[in-house]
């Protein structure tokens, strides 16, 4: 990195930095540290070390060991991981395919807007819409499976433990695909046309062109999409809150929702803090991976 020219001495430092520092210290930094701090204490303010962490990780709504290898409920932690395993490849792949094929499609901007609508929709509303779509009678998913003759899937998905979580995950693919599509579209626009002309002259097939030129050049976008998508999946809250309330039973609960239940229903701030800290640990793990990649670059 070249050194940039700077025009100013430090004399006005407070003017430019103090408002932001005050806001961040009071409403971000202090609360974060305080959450970590209380996660090591019992509600009676005794120091319990990692006690709260062992406590929450041994609860069946966080980690339901007996549930394996059957259907949910498997615990919020596993549900979050399932969310990543299913949602990440589906939304990333469909976004990439759409971005690639939409380059040669007439009216691509209309198609893009239709798919991007999910990204603009408040997640609370997104949760309502996906609940509606999976509802028996009024929803189209059940009508679809009725036509196919698959009776077991032609019902209110969110009302059964076997399907509730998957309804939310598939619904969230529908909401989030616009993100990877937009990021990949922006990335594709930066690839010089000459590369493709050269590939054409060499007689490369479209598949070869894609795997040898397009996908490698999109690597920075892939890193961004993977990171942001995993962060989004770990932070899932609104959809679960409005569509299933984590239910039926614990079948579709997630870490963020469970934290809220512990804190504001059970009023156990210490357990809630442990879940929040654990969740943050997971998000930081993902983020640090991305930073290390960007620094190496």
């Amino acid at each position, binding site marked *: 990195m070249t050194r940039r020219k700077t025009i100013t001495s430090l004399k006005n430092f407070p003017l*430019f930095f103090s408002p932001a520092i005050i*806001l961040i210290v009071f409403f971000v930094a202090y609360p974060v540290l305080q*959450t970590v701090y209380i996660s090591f204490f019992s509600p009676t303010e005794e120091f319990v070390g990692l006690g709260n962490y062992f406590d929450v990780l041994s609860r069946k709504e966080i980690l339901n060991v007996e549930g394996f290898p059957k259907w949910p409920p498997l615990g919020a932690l596993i549900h979050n991981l399932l969310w990543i395993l299913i949602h990440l490849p589906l939304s990333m792949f469909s976004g990439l395919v759409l971005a690639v094929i939409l380059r040669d499609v007439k009216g691509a901007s209309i198609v893009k807007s239709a798919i991007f*609508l999910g990204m*603009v929709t408040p997640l609370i509303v997104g949760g*309502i819409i996906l609940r509606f779509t999976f509802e028996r009678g009024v929803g189209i998913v059940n009508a679809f499976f009725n036509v196919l003759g698959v009776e077991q899937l032609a019902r209110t998905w969110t009302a059964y433990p076997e399907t509730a979580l998957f309804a939310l995950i598939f619904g969230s693919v529908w909401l989030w695909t616009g993100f990877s599509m937009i990021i990949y579209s922006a990335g594709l626009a930066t690839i010089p046309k000459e590369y493709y002309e050269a590939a054409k002259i060499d007689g490369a097939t479209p598949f070869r062109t894609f795997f040898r030129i397009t996908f490698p050049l999109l690597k920075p976008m892939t890193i961004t999409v993977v990171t942001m998508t995993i962060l989004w999946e770990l932070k899932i809250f609104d959809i679960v809150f409005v569509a299933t309330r984590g239910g039926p039973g614990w079948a579709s609960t997630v870490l963020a929702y469970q934290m*809220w239940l512990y804190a504001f229903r059970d009023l156990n701030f210490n357990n809630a803090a442990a879940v929040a800290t654990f*969740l*943050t640990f997971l*998000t930081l793990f993902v983020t640090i991976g991305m930073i290390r990649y960007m620094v190496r670059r």
Partner: protein
Amino acid sequence: MKIRKSTIIVHIIAWSVALIWILPFLGVLMAAIRPFPEILHGWWNFAEFNPSLKNFVEAWSHSSAPLGQGMLNSFLVAIPSTLIPMFVASLTGYGFARFSFPIRDYIFLTVVLIMALPQQMIAVPIFQIMTSLGLVNNYISLILVHSAWGLAWIILFMRNFFLRLPIEIEEAAKVDGASDFKIFYKIVLPMALPALASVAVLQFMWVWNDFFLALILIQSPDKLLATQRIPLMREVHHVDWSVLSAASILVMLVPILIYVLLQKYYIRGMIGWTVKG
């Protein structure tokens, strides 16, 4: 011109995907403009079709959660929660872009780490702070937290923008004896208007769409925001999907209109803070 077979296939795929993607929205729209009994066997069932705006009126002045009040409340929160961090973060972003001090290059790291935080990580202490200040149920609490929460990405975004501005104009003003703040306010900020528009669009949408922070800080029924009223419209045993759909459309209409009208700024903001870094 000869049309190739592959071109046709690609078009069919693209347009069918768009159609599938739009179906859930279409369903909600159809439910919203028709009486509930009509859609009991599917919104695609047009045996009877009596469209009206009745459901919207009912949602707007719903008995347990009037949405009109909620929309107004959401604007009251979202507008200051957009303007405050916009201005504060512009100051700081400019500072990072122009002042010389040693830790400047670590700002990126800090900001990205803050962006990774789940809101749950601040929820309990924020609730406790605001309770002790007597600010629960007061929009000031929500505005302050939204402002602080949005600062990180806006600082990063504005810093990246300011780094690309030519420094010569500012140097000339400096020679003429203008103060740092005057240069910032009179010269730099007006040049930053396109970037500020992107920031405003994204931040406003995030605050409008937010649910979790409001859930924690605002509890009295008349102060609930628009997103908080949606779950309340679902009764335990009976869901009137028509009214609920109408309410959903009203709440999503605001971000969608902003997206449609200011798409250029939205996309620029979206790509700016995720890809550039």
